[in-house]
Each structure stands twice: as structure tokens, then as C-alpha cells.
């Protein structure tokens, strides 16, 4: 799993590249636990190269979601592969999290 980020004003774009399993999700948790992340108003997660996610990866997002919502930080996923989106859907997480088709839509929603 390779995680990179890019900052645009008050938005941080996190790009996930690889597979998020019980082994690799630890580094994502560290990234999202960094106090600096709370200084942004939007967190965009580019999932184009996210080829796999297990419950450990989902658990990282589940565990931070409320904290971001409480701080009025928007967490938005985009470019998600169908097979990965399906895993969110099996648990109904697509109803609790914001998943949109592409970057343009993610930025539009983020600006609302």
C-alpha cells in the first residue's frame, strides 16, 4: 500500500495505491490519526488504484468518520472500483459515507 497526499487550500487529497488489508491498513490509520489532518475542511480519498479492501481497511474509515463529522470535516471517496465499492455496500457503508464517481463531483460536493 502506497499512500500519497496533495494539499489544495483547505482540502487534502489522499491517494491510495494498492491493497488495504489487516497488514497494510496500519499506515492508513497513522495517516488519518495525524493531528494535522484536523486542520483541513475536506478530505478527498482517490480510490482509483485501490485494488482491494478488507474489514481492517474499512475499520480505519469507520473509526475516524464520527471524529471528522464532529469537526465538520467532509470525507469523500471517489474513483472507486466497482469491486471495492461492493465491499462498502455489503455492510451498508455506502449509506453512511460519501462515495462519488470522480474528482469533479468530489470537489463540487466538498464545496457545498
Amino acid at each position, binding site marked *: 500500500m502506497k499512500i500519497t497526499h496533495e494539499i489544495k487550500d483547505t482540502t487534502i487529497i489522499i491517494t491510495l495505491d494498492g*491493497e488495504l*488489508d489487516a497488514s497494510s491498513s496500519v499506515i492508513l490509520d497513522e495517516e488519518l490519526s495525524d493531528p494535522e489532518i484536523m486542520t483541513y475542511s475536506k478530505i478527498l480519498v482517490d480510490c482509483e488504484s485501490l485494488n*482491494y479492501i*478488507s474489514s*481492517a481497511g474499512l*475499520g480505519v474509515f469507520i473509526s475516524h468518520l*464520527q471524529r471528522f463529522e464532529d469537526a465538520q470535516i467532509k470525507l469523500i471517496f471517489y474513483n472507486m472500483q466497482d*469491486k471495492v465499492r461492493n*465491499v462498502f455496500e455489503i*455492510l451498508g457503508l455506502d449509506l453512511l459515507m460519501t462515495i462519488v464517481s470522480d474528482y469533479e463531483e468530489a470537489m463540487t460536493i466538498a464545496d457545498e
Partner: protein
Amino acid sequence: MNNTITVSCTKKNLKPIRDFVTDYLAGFTLSDILMNQIVLAVDEICANLIIHANQEDPSKSISLNVSEKSGMLRFEITDNGVAFRRSEYKEPNIEEHVRIGKKGGVGIALVNRIMDKVEFETAGNKNTCLLYKKIK
């Protein structure tokens, strides 16, 4: 064809297990979504066994055997760790997990929702988890 893989109990070995299942399933015509679901279910069980049943002890191991008969896939995963107690298992409330910021506890729910049949057996110090999925 060798349908069994044995790995030591470290999380790094989850990837070789997924690759093994993916290679086996390549012999069937499955959609990307179904293929991913089956790999995920096996990964979830193996992760639980490695992390919880065997405390990531590399001197311990788990084995996975996969077979298919009449369109039914069968995965047999064995270990010698602490047995899973199904009677103590409760389906997670995901909204509650979000509210309290809980990190774990949704893996078995995924397995139950993906697979057609999930069984846990213990005989002596050997635990066996059996997963079945109809693909035809």
C-alpha cells in the same frame, strides 16, 4: 494440482493467501465482484486466525485447502490456536461502530453475508473453519 497452502501466522502472509485463492479461482468464470468477495471472505477468516487465534506468533501456522464439486466451492482453513466461539458472536451494528469509533469487528459479518455456509469445528486442539460458496 496443489490445492493447499500453509503459512506462518504473520499478517504479511495474508497477501500470499489471497494470491493463492485468486489463482485457484482463475480456473472458473467469475465476475470481478464475485471473485473479490470470495477472496475477501477467505482473507477475513485467515486474518482473524492469524491475529486473534494465534496472536501473530510466527512459530504457528494456518493451512487453507480449496476444492470444488458440482459448482460448490469449499474452503477449509485449519489452525491450532484459540477456537472461535460462535455462541459469543454478535452481528455488528455499523452505525454504532461509527458513533463510538470502533475499528474492528465487521470481518465475520462480511464472511456471513458473502458465503452460502460458514462452519466452525474444533476437535482436540485443531480448529477447522469451512466456507462454502455456490458458483454455478
